[in-house]
C-alpha cells in the first residue's frame, strides 16, 4: 500500500490538472461584451451608450429606396427601431447591428444606404429608423436576437443592447420602401 500511494496521488493530481485545463474558459469569454437585455412591451434596452426600442418587425420579399431608385429582391427582415444616445452625443451611432438566428449571425444590410446606422443619435430624443437584414430563404422562423452597439465591432467588456425578435408568425410584405431615419418621431 505504501508503494502504491504515490502513484495514486500522482494520478489524481494529473487528472485534476486535466480537468482544470479542460474547464478553463478561453480569452473570448473574459473579453465578452456585457449583454443588456430589453424589457417591457415594446422591448427597450438601456445600456451605457444607447437606449433602443424595437417597434416593429416585418418580412419583405423586396425592399426599395424610392429616392435612390434602388430595390432588391430576397428574404428581407425589416426591423423598425427607436434609438437615442444615453450619455453623450459624441460618436453616438449604432455602428454595428447584428441579428442572430440559431447559429448564424447576420449584419444589418449596408445596401439600402439609409438605415438607422447612418443616423447620429441625440440624448433624450428618439430617432426612428429601420434595419434591413438580408436573410437566406430558410431563415424565417425561430427566435431572432437583435444586438446593437455604438462600436464598430463587438466591444471588449462594453455594453451591447439585446432585443428579442420572435420570427414565427411575422407578416410578410410584398415591398417595403425604406425611409430615412427621422428625429423626434415615435
Amino acid at each position: 500500500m505504501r508503494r502504491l500511494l504515490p502513484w495514486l496521488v500522482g494520478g489524481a493530481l494529473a487528472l485534476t490538472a486535466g480537468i482544470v485545463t479542460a474547464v478553463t474558459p478561453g480569452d473570448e469569454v473574459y473579453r465578452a461584451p456585457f449583454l443588456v437585455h430589453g424589457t417591457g412591451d415594446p422591448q427597450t434596452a438601456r445600456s451605457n451608450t444607447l437606449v433602443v426600442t424595437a417597434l416593429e418587425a416585418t418580412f419583405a420579399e423586396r425592399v426599395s429606396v424610392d429616392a435612390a431608385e434602388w430595390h432588391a429582391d430576397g428574404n428581407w427582415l425589416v426591423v423598425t427601431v427607436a434609438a437615442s444616445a444615453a450619455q453623450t452625443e459624441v460618436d453616438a451611432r449604432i455602428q454595428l447591428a447584428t441579428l442572430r438566428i440559431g447559429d448564424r449571425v447576420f449584419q444589418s444590410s449596408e445596401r439600402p444606404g439609409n438605415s438607422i446606422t447612418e443616423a447620429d443619435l441625440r440624448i433624450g430624443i428618439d430617432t426612428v429608423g429601420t434595419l434591413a437584414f438580408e436573410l437566406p430563404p430558410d431563415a424565417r422562423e425561430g427566435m431572432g436576437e437583435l444586438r446593437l452597439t455604438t462600436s464598430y465591432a463587438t466591444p471588449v467588456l462594453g455594453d451591447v443592447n439585446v432585443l428579442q425578435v420572435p420570427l414565427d408568425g411575422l407578416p410578410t410584405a410584398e415591398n417595403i420602401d425604406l425611409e430615412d431615419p427621422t428625429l423626434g418621431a415615435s
Partner: protein
Amino acid sequence: MIRVADVAGGMRNAIAHASRAAISRRAIPAWVAAAALTVLLVVVIASGGLETDEVAPTPLGAGEEVRMPLYSITVLDAQLTDEVEDQSLSADSGETLVLVSMRMENLTDRPIGVGRSADQIASRLIHVDESLLSLSAAPSADSNGVWRNDGSAGSVILQPDVPSEVTIAWTAPEDAFADGLISLDVYDAVETRGRILLSADQISWQRGDLAARITVDTEERE
C-alpha cells in the same frame, strides 16, 4: 606481419557469429520492428506520401463555380477598361483597369466583408498582400474597388448563405493582358484565430491552397 589466413579466418568467425545472432531469440524484437517499419514505408509510398506536393489549380471558365469550405465564387464576366465613371475609377497611362464580375457566397455562419473587415473577421479577399483573390498575370496588382452590380450602397458585406453579385477592380500593367485573357487565381481560405497579440475572438482568413484558376477571354465578349 599479418597472415592472410588469419584475416580470412577472423572474417569467417565474425560472419558466423553475426548470422547466429541474427536468428537468435534475442533478435526477435528487432525483426518485428524492422517489419513494422517496412510495412509503414510501403503504406506511405503507396499513399503518395513521398511524392512532391504540387497543387494543380482546377482550370475553370466563366460560369463555373469554385466551392470551398468557407466561400464559393463564380466568375460571370471580365473586362479591361480605362475608366469606371460611376465608381470614379480611372487608369493611368500604361495601366489598365481589370474588372471581374462574380457571384460570391459566404458559406460560414458569420458575415464577412469583401474589401473590409466585418465585426471581428478579416476575410482578406482583396486589398492585402497574399489575398485570396488575385490576378494570375499580375499577382501584385492593386485591387482598388469593389461594388455590387445592382448599384447598392455601402461597402460590400456578404451575409451567411446569401449569394451576391459583385465586381472587383484591379489596376494592372497594360501589357500583362495583351492576349485579352484574364485569369483569376482563387485560393482556399484557412481560418486562423488570434493568439498572444490578438485575442481568440479575432478571426483572420489566410491564404491556403490554390483552388482554381478561372480564365475569361475578354475578346469573346459581345
